[in-house]
């Protein structure tokens, strides 16, 4: 059907055909979920920030402990195997906040350790 050396026009035609048949990404749904989940994570961050500010941290100083708490929560939920379920729904909503950074570090770290025998 094809010559051993496929011409560039053939490649282009095929790729165009593929683009036509490619299932559409549900962008609107993804964007809405990203907004809601991303917004909620930031609201949670604001809650901890306000708490640390009430302890006497300045606006700027409170950002550090806030990210530490969020990173801990994200690591914990990654450990429990919940964060990736959230990520499937929220996409960038759970990747862009600092928690997504922690998630990728934990997920990468975890595969370095062999799972222990499950009883």
């Amino acid at each position, binding site marked *: 059907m094809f010559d051993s050396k496929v011409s560039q026009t053939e490649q282009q035609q095929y790729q165009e055909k593929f683009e036509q048949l490619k299932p559409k990404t549900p962008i609107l749904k993804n964007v809405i979920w990203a907004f809601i989940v991303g917004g909620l994570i930031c609201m949670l961050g604001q809650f901890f920030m306000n708490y640390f500010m009430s302890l006497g941290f300045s606006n700027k100083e409170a950002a550090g402990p806030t*990210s530490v708490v969020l990173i801990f929560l994200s690591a914990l939920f990654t450990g429990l195997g919940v964060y990736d379920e959230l990520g499937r729904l929220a996409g960038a909503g759970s990747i862009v906040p600092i928690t997504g950074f922690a998630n990728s570090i934990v997920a990468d770290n975890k595969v370095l350790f062999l799972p222990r025998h499950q009883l």
Partner: protein
Amino acid sequence: MQTYLMAFVIGGLICVLGQLLMDLTPLTPAHVLVLFVVLGCVFSSLGLYQPLIDIGGAGATVPLPGFGHSLVSGTIEEVNKAGFWGIFTGAVKATAAGITAAVVFGLAIAIVFNPKGK
């Protein structure tokens, strides 16, 4: 309440931007992660990120551009304080808490939990 609402809106919008980049361009989540930190650095050095934090609070500091902003503002601060060496120490000093937390919690969680398959 106002601050929570603004954190939600600004944080949500930054995530929407990331989602659009992932859905409409061939960028992968890893690209977006790195790109956003770099963007944070750029906007911060142009002095455009601090105003966003003033409006959005955690909505601007929690997403990754906030991390980029900390890198740059930390460097600038340290350069003003310690001079030339601040270029090498400032960025990491400002973000030390986050980096250490990610490494320590990452390691601890990896030891405690088994990786889960699907």
